């Protein structure tokens, strides 16, 4: 019952999964239009900022119109400057409070559309410089400014906040401070690289800027990133969110007054460890060593594929070298980064991710309140876990008590790990765990709104549980099948109501992997799809919806690449070498390791099935290798041995020397003109990309966006390439077709470029993303 999934392991998405931290949403162009003709009377008709004076404290309230979030757009920027100039010139005002009245958002970052609409690095440089000038003025303000933060305070929003003299944040789960720029392939362009290290120390600042990690309010307080916390309030005589913001403002005003009266000092008492650290870091030698160490680590992790992290380290050195006002070099680097392919790819992914977090099928007629999961294996328990922790009542059914117990324990452990990390309290864990009902029979299924089966990948078994379930579930109940390769249409053949049958392909481990691939057959009703997407979104998934077919989208793309993996191994490239070639291309997990993670038996099962369907295009390596591995019990990580040996508690895995004889017995001669390191990498990637584009051509995929999101979030396609479609756009279809033709000459039809790709190569103006 384990790992019948083609998904790579957790680390597969270490890098791209951080993308999810970014809460900011792409802002649409709505705000722009108004501005041009209101400029003359801007004073009276500010649209983003409302400003009032309470006693001698100016209260500046930000709330961008027609948007769920505030972003640092040009209008917001100029309105803010206007207001600040008034504050500075008014003799009545002695201090100011800066607050957002938008629920759940302080400022979510720079306006990405503004950045994306820039065509040259000079334009981007300009934006960065202006922001820096503004923030420097703010930092030097003689009238103290208190940033009152409720909700996301990210990127440019954080840079604004740390330019203020004092910060007060609500201790709300939605309040997150962070510098996620690195995840978009850029750097904090408005001073965080200079101010953060001073404020929280070099190690913490690098951690924030290089991982893009979001910091919750209580931790921010401990780090010194915010000076005070305000607890969110409960019900009073108005809605809690509204009153909390009001209260935050009241508290901020008292602090602003206190700062102006010099009753409060913005300086923070540092602990002993902190003092020692900052002393050590003040020694140039120590500091240089640390920068060197960080740089080494970053180089190792990014394999030189991501320019932004290294640049962040570079520019962080500026203030130490030249002291202050190093606007230009920093801004220029910012501008250059924004124009890199990596940044465009990452920004594209970010936009795609935002799109795949929406339900384009609308709200389902009946919201799923009672879920039932069949099969308490790795997948079933994982699905149950991501459901119960969102408050969804879930029945977990298996056929034997030990199997059920193992699944229940998996759910408990998943939740308990969060308690250990202090993201949950033990009480919250218990309340979530009580949403799970484990059982061996179909009791209660008559009240289920959706059943997700996650039993072993065997068509007969799937038919049996479908029939069993349909005997008890109500008419409206959706039956979803979690399978990585069995066509949903075939599963649905035994159903009395095929319009209610759908595929929900989760990736292992379910609680870590963000992707959910939903598969619709021709008979699946739109409401069934809407319901599945709704459940997936509630489970926190990024969702692509594809048409039914062998291997759907994700498995289908991965299989030809896997076939190539076997051939490359047969040609004498060792698993370690192959792993290093693939990871250095940007895959989070090496190709040989991936086979071990997926499970050799599963890989063979899928390869056989899809091989039958797609014939020669999916050929390449010999399945005999997998067969021999299975017969020796080398099933991959789950059996402790595959290409590598896996031992509990041993970090560095060793090669499985027993594989040598298998590899030797199946050895094939390599073709030298297509076997350079680069060729090997491209043989793998082009087969993947070609198949992905064929999926779009055949209509399995509805949009290139879903293709990119599926490849990156489900299969670990290099995020720096942005997914197969971005890759073709950014690197040129012609170059890829050229590669394919070269390999076609050597190996035949497996590398024949599909028509859509050829069309793109023939017409350079044709792009998947306009």
């Amino acid at each position, binding site marked *: 019952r384990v790992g019948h999934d083609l998904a790579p392991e957790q680390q597969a998405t270490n890098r791209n999964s951080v993308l999810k931290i970014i809460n900011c949403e792409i802002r649409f162009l709505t705000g722009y239009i108004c501005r041009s003709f209101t400029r003359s009377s801007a004073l009276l008709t500010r649209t983003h900022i409302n400003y009032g004076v309470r006693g001698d404290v100016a209260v500046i309230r930000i709330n961008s119109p027609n948007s769920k979030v505030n972003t640092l757009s040009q209008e917001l920027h100029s309105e803010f400057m206007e207001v600040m100039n008034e504050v500075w010139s008014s003799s009545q005002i002695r201090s100011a409070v800066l607050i957002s009245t938008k629920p759940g958002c302080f400022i979510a970052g720079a306006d990405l559309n503004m950045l994306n609409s820039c065509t040259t690095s000079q334009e981007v440089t300009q934006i960065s410089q202006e922001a820096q000038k503004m923030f420097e003025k703010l930092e030097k303000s003689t009238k103290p400014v208190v940033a009152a933060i409720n909700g996301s305070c990210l990127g440019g929003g954080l840079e604004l906040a740390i330019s203020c003299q004092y910060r007060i944040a609500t201790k709300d789960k939605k309040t997150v401070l962070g510098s996620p720029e690195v995840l978009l392939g850029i750097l904090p362009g408005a001073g965080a690289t200079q101010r953060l290290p001073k404020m929280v120390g070099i190690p913490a600042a690098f951690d924030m800027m290089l991982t893009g990690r979001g910091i919750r309010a209580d931790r921010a307080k401990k780090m010194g990133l915010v000076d005070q916390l305000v607890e969110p309030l409960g019900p009073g005589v108005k809605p809690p969110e509204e009153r909390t913001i*009001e209260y935050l403002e009241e508290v901020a005003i008292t602090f602003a007054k206190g700062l102006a009266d010099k009753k409060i000092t913005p300086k923070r008492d540092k602990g002993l460890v902190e003092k020692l650290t900052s002393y050590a870091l003040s020694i140039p030698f120590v500091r240089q060593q640390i920068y060197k160490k960080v740089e080494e680590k970053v180089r190792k992790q990014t394999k030189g594929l991501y320019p932004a992290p290294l640049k962040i380290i570079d520019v962080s050195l500026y203030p130490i070298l030249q002291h202050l006002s190093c606007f230009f070099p920093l801004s220029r680097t910012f501008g250059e980064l924004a124009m890199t392919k990596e940044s465009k790819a990452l920004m594209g992914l970010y936009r795609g991710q935002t799109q795949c977090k929406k339900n384009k099928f609308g709200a389902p007629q009946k919201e799923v309140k009672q879920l039932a999961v069949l099969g308490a294996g790795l997948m079933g328990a994982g699905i149950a876990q991501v459901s119960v922790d969102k408050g969804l009542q879930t029945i977990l059914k298996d056929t034997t008590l030990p199997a059920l117990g193992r699944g229940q324990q998996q759910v408990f452990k998943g939740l308990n790990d969060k308690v250990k990390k202090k993201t949950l309290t033990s009480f919250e864990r218990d309340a979530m765990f009580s949403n799970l009902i484990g059982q061996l029979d179909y009791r209660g299924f008559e009240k289920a709104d959706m059943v997700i089966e996650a039993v072993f990948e065997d068509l007969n078994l799937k038919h049996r549980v479908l029939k069993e379930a349909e005997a008890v579930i109500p008419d409206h109940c959706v039956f979803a099948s979690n399978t990585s390769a069995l066509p949903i249409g075939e599963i649905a053949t035994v159903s009395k109501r095929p319009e209610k049958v759908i595929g929900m392909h989760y990736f292992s481990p379910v609680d870590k992997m963000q992707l959910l691939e939903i598969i619709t057959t021709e008979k699946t009703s739109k409401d069934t799809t809407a319901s599945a997407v709704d459940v997936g979104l509630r489970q926190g998934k990024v969702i692509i919806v594809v048409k039914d077919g062998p291997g759907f989208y994700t498995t289908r793309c991965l299989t030809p690449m896997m076939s190539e993996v076997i051939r490359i191994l047969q040609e004498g490239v060792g698993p370690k070498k192959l792993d290093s070639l693939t990871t250095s291309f940007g895959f989070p997990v090496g190709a040989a390791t991936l086979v071990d993670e997926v499970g050799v038996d599963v890989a063979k099962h899928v390869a056989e099935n899809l091989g039958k369907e797609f014939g020669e295009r999916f050929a390449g390596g010999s399945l005999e290798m997998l067969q021999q591995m299975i017969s020796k019990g080398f099933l991959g990580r789950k059996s402790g041995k595959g290409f590598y040996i896996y031992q509990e508690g041993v970090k560095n895995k060793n090669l499985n020397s027993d594989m040598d004889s298998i590899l030797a017995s199946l050895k094939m001669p390599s073709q030298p003109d297509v076997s350079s390191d680069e060729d090997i990498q491209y043989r793998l990637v082009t087969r993947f990309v070609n198949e992905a584009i064929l999926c779009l051509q055949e209509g399995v995929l509805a949009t290139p966006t879903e293709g990119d999101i599926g490849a990156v979030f489900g299969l670990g396609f290099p995020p720096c390439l942005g997914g197969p479609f971005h890759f073709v756009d950014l690197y040129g279809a012609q170059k890829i077709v050229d590669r394919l033709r070269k390999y076609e000459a050597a190996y035949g039809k497996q590398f024949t470029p599909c028509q859509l790709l050829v069309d793109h190569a023939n017409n350079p103006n044709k792009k998947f993303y306009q």
Partner: protein
Amino acid sequence: FSDFRMISLLTYTLKNLPNTSKWALRFCMRPLSSSSQLQAAAASQTKSKKTLAKPNIRNIVVVDGVRTPFLLSGTSYKDLMPHDLARAALSGLLHRTSVPKDVVDYIIFGTVIQEVKTSNVAREAALGAGFSDKTPAHTVTMACISSNQAMTTAVGLIASGQCDVVVAGGVELMSDIPIRHSRKMRKMMLDLNKAKTLAQRLSIISKFRLNFLSPELPAVSEFSTSETMGHSADRLAAAFAISREEQDEYALRSHSLAKKAQDEGLLSDVVPFKVPGRDTVTQDNGIRPSSLDQMAKLKPAFIKPYGTVTAANSSFLTDGASAVLIMAEEKALAMGYKPKAYLRDFMYVSQDPKDQLLLGPTYATPKVLEKAGLTMNDIDVFEFHEAFSGQILANLKAMDSDWFAQNYMGRKAKVGLPPLEKFNNWGGSLSLGHPFGATGCRLVMAAANRLRKEGGQYGLVAACAAGGQVFSICFTCVTDKTSYL
């Protein structure tokens, strides 16, 4: 921990309860004002007659109740154990009521922080106070409404015909609390107990680490939310936009009224207690009317540095015990007692322990009134438990808010404000003190005694407790004009 207060509604039943129409008529006499009011009152009286004394359910009365003086923790009671205090309350009750010990069918006590040695403190105290060893006793806990729970348990026993005479009470001794060894240390000690050989013992001891010695204190915070009650009260006050000044003013009112009541000898439920090895304690020692200026100097106690809840506007850690004698009415009459009050409708409600931890009285008050068929205007005496000034004021604001009623209580309109002139007129937990387990009985006796003194009919008690739970009760005063005379 804060208790909520109970709401007591006292109906003036002129005679006894069996509800003949005669009595309904008498009820109608009472509200004298306008005719429309009269009609309304008549209606409500008729209803109240129906609910307040229920057919087929025995009438249950409070004969009398006493308490030890409530003292600040760490003062004269500091060397006692909880059952010593409870015993003092029981002895005081025996003395006050002269009830023959063998008549008592059952004894129930409430307590919150349990002394491990006397986990059934009711039994230990009863034996020590000279009650018959044939009288069973048990202990209940429900945070700050523990002694309310003791009383209503008694009501249940009597109403169901199991008992006729029950003593209910509560005790808390915050001067001494059970501080434990850490779990690791405890585990090691238990393992050592089981070890049979020296080698086994040594191997267990070798696992000892210095941090095993760090002690474990009883939790001061809500288990489910990890938030302390003072912190929650501060947030509650902020949610209702209650200023520090308002809170200090209310606290001052409580202390001033308590002082006045003490000086005038109105706190008649207090019985003197000769503490072994010390002087006799005769009165509460936490009543300290101060000035607003002085109170304003205190720093916030929970949300620092900008919160509004301070030591001066919170109830303080208190030692004390209380006890009441509850009987079936016919038994009390047969024994020649003149009971003080009928215990009528009561109810427990609970809500969100995070954001509405202390907001219970707002929920419970209208419910118990409806159950009794009364309105806010019918009530003559309100006794609400004062955990924090901010909590009382927040409840008053919530009761006065249509928005709150509509959005959180599912009501069409606000509950309405209890008039302040009828509210905690002899001080409250802020000034008299708040021994968690004992406050419930104090509230009921305060309401009963006030009804007598002030000549009212209905009393209402409400008390909030940790866990977001609340107790409230309506009761009816038995006056001198009743047939018991």
